[in-house]
């Protein structure tokens, strides 16, 4: 049962082969048994989950089920869910039980009838690439428990990889869906900015943040995106577009597909074993009828520097709302109002979040705004224009998702810059606002462990359907994505 696709699970539920209560119970049992070691979930509430499963069963019995009704899913703890503790991986929200639902939560549960299994661990405020900045402790990678699952959606990735959930949600500001998907052998899609509502999704960098599905196949991701996507008047950056069926085009043949290979993604700086996996995947795509074309993204080396100005700038503004007055943690002792703010924030935020707030505050401050913030925004334009030029000669862009497989816990935790470079291939996509997907493409043997490798496909604006199609066809020809870690 735990290896079945979402489509097959839906069919089993429809045929009454299993009930949602049984299916949910099966996953809750696995969570109770395996989560203490993996630490993928920060909150589980079996009563709530089973109540939702019972409601789903009634809906199925009444013939009112949607395509995913009754299927359990794990929610990243960045989404506000009414009545659920919603921590965003931070001490400052350690007591925050959300009084309202994020749009993603409403659409998935109230509307589509998916069953919430719990809230997954994450880097604090999604700031990290290893899940080590969480107040609730690091997540262990199910493929090697001495290694990180990636981040910031590390709990979601580990939950699905360890089969503690059939699928999960993630959010991606600089690679936070794609990099953990790559490190945990999952398929993870970051949609075009504005396709999925950000309402109720705790903001990190508002011009970059985008939610998306994390699952075991492109087919599963297509079904999930059908539920997650759509215009929302409560998000001022949500895009008004006709509804799309992301499942419908999965089977399209790839004949004539032009795959762009950016020379900047195939140079130095990438683990040779990762590169070998990516090259083998390119050969597979050629067998499937695709052609490759060399392209250039000449400003891509500037994406990490520009990102570490823009994202902290937006974060310093967004996170000013955590002040100990309206919700969340408040310091137990303080003097005047300024002291209340300063002590609450000093005690409530972790070291990485504080660093980013300080950087953001600095680059926005008087005298530095032009040199840093405006310069970063100009470079953002150059990076986006590189993609515009590239998509004139290719349909999708392919490269590695991450320069290395999963690294050891603690390996990069002491050096923020080393950690930041883990997102070197993913960040430009967020700056441009494009969609991209990471899919499994092989394994690296390292110190007795089999570590997954991911490849990234980047598409033009609103090409989610095409990306899912290109990923799906590869997954029909290969079985990397079906492999599960041993001892789960």
């Amino acid at each position, binding site marked *: 049962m735990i290896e079945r696709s979402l489509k097959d699970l839906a069919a089993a539920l429809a045929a009454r082969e299993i009930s949602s209560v049984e299916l949910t119970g099966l996953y809750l049992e696995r969570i109770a048994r395996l989560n203490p070691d993996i630490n993928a979930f920060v909150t589980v509430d079996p009563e709530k989950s089973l109540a939702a499963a019972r409601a789903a069963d009634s809906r199925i019995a009444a013939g009112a089920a949607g395509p995913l009704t009754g299927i359990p899913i794990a929610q990243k703890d960045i989404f506000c869910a009414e009545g659920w503790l919603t921590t965003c991986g931070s001490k400052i929200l350690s007591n925050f039980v959300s009084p*309202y639902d994020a749009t993603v939560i409403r659409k998935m549960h109230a509307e589509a009838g998916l069953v919430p299994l719990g809230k997954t661990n994450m880097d604090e405020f999604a700031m990290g690439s290893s899940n080590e900045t969480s107040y609730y402790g690091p997540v262990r990678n199910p493929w090697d428990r001495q290694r990180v699952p990636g981040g910031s959606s590390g709990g979601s990735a580990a939950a699905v990889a360890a089969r503690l959930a059939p699928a999960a949600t993630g959010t991606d500001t600089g690679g936070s869906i794609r990099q953990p998907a790559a490190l945990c052998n999952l398929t993870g899609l970051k949609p075009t900015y504005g396709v999925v509502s950000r309402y109720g999704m705790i903001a990190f960098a508002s*011009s970059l943040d985008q939610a998306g599905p994390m699952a075991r196949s492109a087919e599963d991701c297509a079904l999930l995106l059908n539920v997650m996507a759509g215009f929302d008047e409560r998000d001022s950056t949500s895009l008004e577009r006709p509804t799309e069926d992301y499942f419908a085009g999965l089977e399209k043949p790839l004949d004539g597909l032009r795959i762009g290979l950016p020379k900047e993604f195939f140079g130095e700086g990438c683990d040779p074993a990762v590169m070998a996996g990516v090259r083998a995947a390119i050969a597979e795509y050629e067998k499937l009828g695709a052609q490759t074309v060399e392209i250039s993204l000449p400003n891509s080396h500037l994406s990490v520097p520009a990102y570490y*100005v823009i994202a902290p700038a937006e974060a310093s503004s967004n996170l000013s709302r955590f002040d100990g007055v309206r*919700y969340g943690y*408040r310091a137990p002792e303080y003097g005047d109002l300024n002291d209340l703010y300063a002590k609450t924030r000093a005690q409530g935020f972790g070291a990485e979040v504080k660093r980013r707030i300080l950087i953001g505050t600095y680059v926005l401050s008087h005298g530095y705004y032009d040199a840093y913030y405006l310069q970063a925004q100009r470079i953002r334009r*150059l990076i986006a224009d590189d993609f515009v030029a590239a998509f004139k000669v290719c349909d999708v862009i392919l490269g590695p998702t991450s320069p290395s497989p999963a690294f050891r816990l603690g390996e990069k935790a002491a050096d923020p810059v080393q950690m930041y470079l883990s997102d070197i291939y993913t960040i430009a996509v967020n700056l441009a606002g494009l969609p991209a997907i990471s899919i499994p493409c092989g394994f690296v043997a390292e110190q007795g462990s089999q570590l997954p490798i991911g490849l990234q496909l980047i598409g033009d604006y609103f090409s989610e359907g095409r990306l899912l199609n290109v990923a799906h066809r590869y997954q029909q020809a290969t079985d990397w994505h079906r492999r599960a870690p041993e001892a789960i």
Partner: protein
Amino acid sequence: MSLSLEQVQRIAHLARIEVSAAEAEATLSRLNGIFQLIEAMQAVDTRGVEPMAHAQDLSQRLREDAVSEPDRRVAFQAVAPETEAGLYLVPKVIE
């Protein structure tokens, strides 16, 4: 460029985050490492390039100026550290 200890304290004050002298010292070297990374931007000639603030160049939607949300003050204040009579309590600001 590199920051000074005084600058770190100044930014921390602007950000309303209390930092001890020891913390400021430790933060300083990390921040300077990050600024070294950011410096790579400075060599790029961006004269004439329009700054890009947002992924989609769209104007903000407008809606009718009408009440669209129900009153949920009680639920929203239930999660506040300290309230009284519908107000959020903070230390006295005006003597």
